[in-house]
């Protein structure tokens, strides 16, 4: 039996292509809307795009760094509290 169409490799490739086209369109759309920026940085082309990407990459890296110190097995509290 064939899996759901969403789970097929061909559909996933298609979704990726569609996604990249949409990404490009949102950046291009900037040139067709009137801007009323509050701050200078907002006027840099593609501000939302690069800022959103970098912010997320930064958050993921920060989270991974924090995890090096604070990550524990998810049974961590069970033992102590079962005895207690």
């Amino acid at each position, binding site marked *: 039996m064939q*899996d*759901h169409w*969403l*789970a097929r490799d061909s559909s996933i490739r298609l979704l990726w292509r569609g*996604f990249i086209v*949409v*990404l490009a369109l*949102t*950046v291009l*759309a*900037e040139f*067709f*809307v*009137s*801007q*009323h*920026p*509050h*701050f200078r*940085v*907002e006027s840099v082309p*593609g*501000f*939302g*795009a*690069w*800022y*959103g*990407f970098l*912010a*997320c*990459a*930064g*958050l*993921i890296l*920060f*989270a*991974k760094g*924090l*995890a090096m110190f*604070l*990550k*524990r*097995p*998810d049974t*961590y*509290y069970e033992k*102590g*509290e079962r005895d*207690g």
Partner: protein
Amino acid sequence: MASAFLHPGLLVVVAGFALALLGGRARAAVALLAPLAALYLILVAPTGVAWSGSWLGFEVKPLAYDPLSRMFGVVFAIMAFAGALFALNQKSRLELPAAFVYAGSAIGAVLAGDLVTLFVCWELMAVGSTLVIWTAGSVTAYRASLRYMAIHLLGGVLLFAGIAGHVAATGSTGFDRMALESPAHWLILAGFLVNAGAPPLSAWLPDAYPEASWSGMVFLSAFTTKTAVYVLLRGFPGTELLIWVGLIMVFYGIVYALLENDMRRILAYSIVNQVGFMVVGIGIGTEMALNGAAAHAFTHIIYKALLLMSAGSVLYATQRRKCTDLGGLFRTMPLTAVCGTIGALAISSFPLTSGFVSKSMISQAAGDEHLLWVWLALAAATAGVFLHAGIKFPWFVFFQKDSGLRPDEPPLNMRLAMLLFAALCIGLGIFYQPLYALLPFSTDYVPYTGSHVVVQLELLLFSGLAFFVMLPMLQRTLTITLDVDWFYRRIAPALVGAGALALRAMGETLGAARDGGVRRIEAAAHALHGPQAILARTWTTGGMAMWAALLLGAYLVVFYL
């Protein structure tokens, strides 16, 4: 008018007690009609004080309406209705009554016109919500409910001390805007912030809420933190400290949710994140910012409940809660997946969803005030919300790998509750005027401008790109991330344990010393009084006569001296 003598909060609480006794259709009817009746009362009541009197020598106004309290009352009543619809098939007979006491006291708290009534409702909420967690029935839920209660009793003590100080200093129980110039007001602020999930005690929320049942957490997500937002809006608008507190909450929620594996704990961290946006708005304090905070509380209650309903449906259908066990559920639970995704889009403030029309007001306010760093942080956090809740939750639960699970959709009442809230998430995103009409300040803000929409889409879609590009770093593992609760779950018990050991060692030393002492006294007594000892021997008659003669002789001598 009925609205003058009927208290909507009290109505819901009384309905809760009735629910504990009723069964069958009568139970369902009361559960659905009581919140609707409360909603009607809140909508038709005239602005002003409806109930007033004096209690224990204090001026109290247990029922007072103004635009802000009405707005929160409306959304709480809607929430109670949808939550009841979702929970109708809950087997626990006590959860819904507890949830109604909780919801009713939350309505009471926002309709309270004075600090005394507010405090009473505040504590009733703590009791009701603890019972909701308790009724999940597991040992872990019981332990979590005790930790939850301890934190909220602490918050209650802070609040009580603050209110007592405020009343002593001003002689007034009125709940008005406060300035942070007396210890009493700091205590009140601290009490409010504990319930908002603010640092350093944010951990109570992701610790306790996900231990509730599949339906219990839907109620829990709505009332406690949003009542805190309401009281901060009323008591501390424009307090700059709140901007920084809010920003910490925003990023704390994102970072911890990114590392989390339990689907409902992801959503719990995201509550702290979303309340953080509201707290920032309250800190900015302009009319636009306060409107944004209030609107965001309104829309957040609905989309967060929708997200938790879809997570609750998955938990109900699969009995699993970890992302590592889930995945691929869209095949057999398409409706749940679609509703969950709509909630995820709304929390990410996608254009045409409710989150967009509310959150953009807070960013707009930061821009209007020229707070560049706050505005940049909010923009980064907006992208981060899509990352940790908007994509992560639906992706790991409904898509990613095929877990092999093929659960059915949940029962009709649960599906209807999800459909209702999904419709509201989109409806409020398109027809936002009724929501704006409920706001505390009148506004002509227009959320849908070309540049707003384009910048928001860029932020969100490129956040999505970052998610999929960095997906290997986001794969879930069977881990938790330590939080401040580590201090009271690990360090404090360890200290108490060490203290107990030290006491036991001391007790043993003392016991040994005591035993040694007793033995010495025994030996001495034995030497004098034992069977062969000097005082226990039988004496000869001659010896007796000699001692008697000696005593008499001594007496004679003493007599003549």
